[in-house]
């Protein structure tokens, strides 16, 4: 040990510099923290993977429900303005009455188009759809009625739509009027149910993800408690002490988002074909909307915020009691 020599202390000590140098020091500090955080995560990879998996699962359920709800919305979109109507005629309606009805429908300002489906055309469509042409050929008579496919003009409100439906039902030659809105209403009801469910689950699982992050960060804090105590005693501000743990929280959140994206992608791949077949039977083409760059970005931002919130919660609890440590 040598004598205390202040010139040794000072001569080579550069000044702190201006705001630029301070900013550089600040950026370097953050870079160092990020490096230390990643190193810690790499050293404790198994625990980190577990945290990521838990957060990923918590994010996946509401996200998955959101995607289902978006798909249902797309299915209903083509009918969402004014659902089509199928006007079934009485059996044996004479051709001149069919022609009269066709003219009446086409003259109606509320109807955009009306196309007649004869009993034979209906039978042909039915037999080709079920693939039992020979069985249909053996029928003595065609049991299917003639019908009109009616497309109302867009932009009708519910009351106008209902009036049109009622008027059509009152026509003598009409046996029944079926609105595509019936099953559309069901789809929309299910869609609304799923939408609300996804919000509730997003809230619940969001809180769960925050708690998982807080718990994981809490473990990191415990493992670095002596370091924090020393930092506190040498004058570290709470913000300085929180900083590395917020990095932990954000990285846990981002890892969880990555896990969630992978889980959802895998689920889409597994479910795509059966869903395509199911929807195809309704003449609807499957599309999975939303799982695109903006949604992925949203997922990662939300996950990072959840992670940071969890970290802040853990820090608020633990760092407060730091001073009471022996």
């Amino acid at each position, binding site marked *: 040990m040598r004598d205390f020599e202040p010139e040794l202390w000072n001569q080579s*000590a550069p000044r*702190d510099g201006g705001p630029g140098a301070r900013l550089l020091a600040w950026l370097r500090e953050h870079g160092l923290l990020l490096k230390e955080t990643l190193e810690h995560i790499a050293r404790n990879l198994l625990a980190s993977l577990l945290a990521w998996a838990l957060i990923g699962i918590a994010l996946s359920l509401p996200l998955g429900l959101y995607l289902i709800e978006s798909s249902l919305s797309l299915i209903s979109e083509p009918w969402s303005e004014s659902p089509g109507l199928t006007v079934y005629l009485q059996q044996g309606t004479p051709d001149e009455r069919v022609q009269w009805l066709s003219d009446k429908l086409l003259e109606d300002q509320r109807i955009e188009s009306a196309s007649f489906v004869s009993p034979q055309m209906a039978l042909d469509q039915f037999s080709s759809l079920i693939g039992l042409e020979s069985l249909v050929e053996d029928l003595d008579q065609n049991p299917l009625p003639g019908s009109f496919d009616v497309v109302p003009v867009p932009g009708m409100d519910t009351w106008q739509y209902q009036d049109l439906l009622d008027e059509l039902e009152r026509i003598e030659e009409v046996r029944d009027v079926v609105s595509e809105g019936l099953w559309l209403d069901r789809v929309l009801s299910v869609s609304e149910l799923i939408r609300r469910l996804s919000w509730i689950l997003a809230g619940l699982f969001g809180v769960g993800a925050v708690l998982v992050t807080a718990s994981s960060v809490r473990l990191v804090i415990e493992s670095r408690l002596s370091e924090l105590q020393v930092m506190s005693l040498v004058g570290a501000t709470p913000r300085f002490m929180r900083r590395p743990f917020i990095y932990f929280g954000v990285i846990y959140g981002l890892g969880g988002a990555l896990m969630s994206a992978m889980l959802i992608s895998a689920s889409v791949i597994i479910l795509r074909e059966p869903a395509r077949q199911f929807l195809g039977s309704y003449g609807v083409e499957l599309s999975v909307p939303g799982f695109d760059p903006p949604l992925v970005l949203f997922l990662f931002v939300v996950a990072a915020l959840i992670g940071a919130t969890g970290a802040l919660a853990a820090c608020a609890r633990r760092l407060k009691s730091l001073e009471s440590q022996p």
Partner: protein
Amino acid sequence: MPCKPSMQPNLWKRCWGQTEMFGLGVRFTEVTKQFVGAQRGALQGVSHSFAPGSITFVTGHSGAGKTTLLRLIMNQFSPTYGQVMVGDVNLASLKPQELPRFRQQLGVVFQEHRLLSERTVLENVMLPLRVTGRSRALKESRALNALSIMGLEYKEDLLPEQLSTGEQQRVGIARALVNRPRLLLADEPTGNLDPEMSKSIMRLFGEFQQIGATVIVASHDLALIREFGAPFIELREGELVGSTGS
């Protein structure tokens, strides 16, 4: 002109460049500290003033209250009764957000050195500068100089566990000095050092005090204190039972 220990204070100040060293005085007024569940107070009715720029030893047997006295100055907890003033600040009135800045003026040598085991010697010494957001160049420069003063040059890249106990304690002292504290608190700083090294450390504290810092050293080694000839106060079972020369 080279700066040497024992120079006139104005020369010392010049040697410190822009830094003006004005030590912080400490005043205890009827301070009692009673921990929850304890039979008696760790400190009982202690009144004493540590003048700015002075060096004072606090002595007494184990459990006499030396560490409690230092921890009260660090504001790790508040006194049960009485008042602790550091400079012109009543520590009881210090707001939580003011505590870090207050502590940045202190240098603390811990009894068990409390080095961070996963960080290198250099990183340990740089820590007080790191929390104040200093530039990397300044941090490294000051930390390396502090290590050099402690005779630990070329050991900056080692981990604490690769050092002897005495070396670890010297790293702890370097860390306490690196921020140029206005008030240096040392809790049994020579406990792990050989007699020669202990004297060197004490001399170092004396020289640090000469440039204006206030130094308070808790030590049970009365022989060393007497040899050093500095004023001291003696605690016994939490009570101030004697003081010399302050």
